[in-house]
């Protein structure tokens, strides 16, 4: 039997004044019912565009002609707007990063929760309201009856995100795409929201794609992790495998930069040296090479493809994977020279 969601060689580009932006550049993965996939990467690596590409919810400036995303046998790309609307919010739902901007400031909370019921289920009035109360209780909003008629600005950030989650769950979707659902929240609230998502997933049996820039969020809560860099998946593995035996130098750098719980909110990943790559004029070779401690001459010439690493189901796109013979040799050569093939300074020990 095929997976619930099958993504194959998905490409999304934007025509801009500066040139063609390759935001998603050949992504493939599968997701089964009830499973959780984390998509991790720095900001600008194409996670949000990937999420929107999966739903086919993109501005008209996007070129979506290459690659396929098949949801339960339905090809999402090339689907008519009307057919997509039947899927959006009913089969596949989305939550966004900042609940202040993703909830309409001039529409009452109750209505925002019940809207999709009205159009997907024909439920309105008392029945819809009853369902809204149930959903609000489900996502842990205290005293839901009095909160039906408030506006988003009257709620705290965590409560707003709970409203957004209730909204997304209204029609019992089988896939929930959560695009950095906790990035805009306080650390303690982050934990509550993640726990809530985990509980809801078990209770409702839905699949979740959890997008985050924080590998720590993925740890322990997801079945599989895909690490994204410059619009591509550079490493993918079952979560425990990834954390015990990461192979891509970028993943290693991400893990080293996990913000500790006591750190301030909105911590940016500043510990990876260098800047994210230019998606408009991609250079030859591996996109991460300029920032990579392992980079060798080959990395500047050839583009590594995603291949099975040491374990089955663990894939990595790197010529010199971490903790392999080739990788160790590359790193020690670079440490000895003090510089990588791309000219990046490499300190001896980390």
């Amino acid at each position, binding site marked *: 039997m095929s997976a619930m969601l099958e993504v194959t060689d998905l490409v999304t580009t934007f025509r801009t004044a500066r040139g063609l932006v390759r935001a998603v550049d050949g992504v493939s993965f599968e997701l089964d019912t009830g499973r959780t996939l984390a998509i991790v990467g720095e900001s600008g690596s194409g996670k949000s565009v990937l999420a929107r590409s999966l*739903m086919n*919810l993109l501005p008209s400036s996007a070129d979506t002609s290459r690659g396929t995303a098949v949801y339960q046998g339905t090809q999402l790309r090339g689907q008519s*707007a009307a057919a*997509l*609307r*039947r*899927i*959006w*919010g*009913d089969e596949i*739902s*989305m939550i*966004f990063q*900042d609940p202040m*901007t*993703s*909830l*309409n*400031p*001039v*529409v009452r909370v109750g209505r925002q929760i019940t*809207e*999709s019921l009205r*159009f*997907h289920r024909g439920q309105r009035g008392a029945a819809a309201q009853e369902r809204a109360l149930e959903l609000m209780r489900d996502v842990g909003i205290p*005293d839901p009856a*009095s*909160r039906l*008629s*408030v*506006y988003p*600005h*009257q*709620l*705290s950030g965590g409560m707003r995100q709970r409203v*957004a989650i209730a*909204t997304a769950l209204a029609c019992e979707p089988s896939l929930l795409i959560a695009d950095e659902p906790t990035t805009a929240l306080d650390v303690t609230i982050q934990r509550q929201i993640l726990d809530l998502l985990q509980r809801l997933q078990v209770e409702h049996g839905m699949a979740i794609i959890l997008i985050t820039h924080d590998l720590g969020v993925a740890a322990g809560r997801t079945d599989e992790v895909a690490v994204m860099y410059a619009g591509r998946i550079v490493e993918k593995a079952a979560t425990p495998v990834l954390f015990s035996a990461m192979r891509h130098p970028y993943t290693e750098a991400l893990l080293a930069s996990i913000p500790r719980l006591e750190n301030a909110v909105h911590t940016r990943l500043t510990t990876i040296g260098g800047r994210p790559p230019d998606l408009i004029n991609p250079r030859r070779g591996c996109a991460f090479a300029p920032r990579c401690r392992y980079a060798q001459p080959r990395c500047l010439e050839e583009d590594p493809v995603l291949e099975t690493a040491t374990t089955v189901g663990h894939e990595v796109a790197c010529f010199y994977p971490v903790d392999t013979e080739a990788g160790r040799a590359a790193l020690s050569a670079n440490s000895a020279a003090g510089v990588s093939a791309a000219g990046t300074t490499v300190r001896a020990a980390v």
Partner: protein
Amino acid sequence: MTQLTTPTPTARPAAAPSAGSRAAAVGRKLRTRLLHIVPVLLLVTFGSMLLVDLTPGDPAATILGESATPDQVAALRQQLGLDRPLFVRYGEWIAHIAQGDFGRSIRSQQPVLDAILERLPVTIELAILAQIMAFLVVIPLALYTAYRAGGRADRLANVVTSGLVSMPPFLTALLLVFVFALSLRAFPATGWVRIADDPLGNLRSAFLPALALALTELAVLTRVLRSDLIATLQEDFILSAKAKGLPTWYVLLRHALRPSSFSLVTLAGLSLGRLIGGAVIVETLFALPGIGQLLVNSILAKDAVVVQGVVVFVAIVYVALNVLTDVFYTILDPRTRVTGA
């Protein structure tokens, strides 16, 4: 006592603002506005009196006609009180206004308030009709062109509305008269049928002048609403509304229109004030017995009492509409609602 003019949006726990607190906020606003209006009124009425006084020609001489002797003119001047200094006349006028007495026309002796109220229905009907016509076009047109920004319809609408904006209203009015009244003979070119006499005839006589007013109006409003809508359509909450699978019409009407309407409401409020203050050009062109015509006629007759009466009236209408616009803001955006200070 504290005056709250600008609402301060604060994060408050639950509990929607009550109707009582909203009424209190409106009351506060009205009081502040009234305090502002008094000096403005003094300045404007004194200025208009001065202007009427400074223009060449003597009302008494105009009333009596060419054949009057200087003695007769002097007698009438005395009778009308025109021989007294400007300041004295102004002071008396103010004193009367304070008691609600707008005075009488120095020409017809008709009470000024009566003259205004007699003409008000015409002007109000015209203003409201023009506004309705404008909105009937503005909302769908702006929604469509914003949704399909850069498309063919958008570019066409852009050309047409910039043309309309740059066309002076009298020209628009004359063109309408030429096409609809003179060529097609679909509507009367001038004159007014009272609604009590013939409702259908009334609408026919109001149609062209209202359309002339609406055309300029709708061009400005469409452009403003379109650009605000385009900005709103970039918002995350629009994306999340789409992601719920809501139909496009619903996303546009329910999620995009309201947060995009602030400039629209402001402009519409101002222009309604302007229209009720008398659509001078259009009322003159179409010979409609409205406030605008009253103003023009009394200026020509150097009837300062009527001119000032109209000025005061217009100012009051402006304040009232301003307050209404503010009330409308609080309806449009719940974040601007303030509970008691």
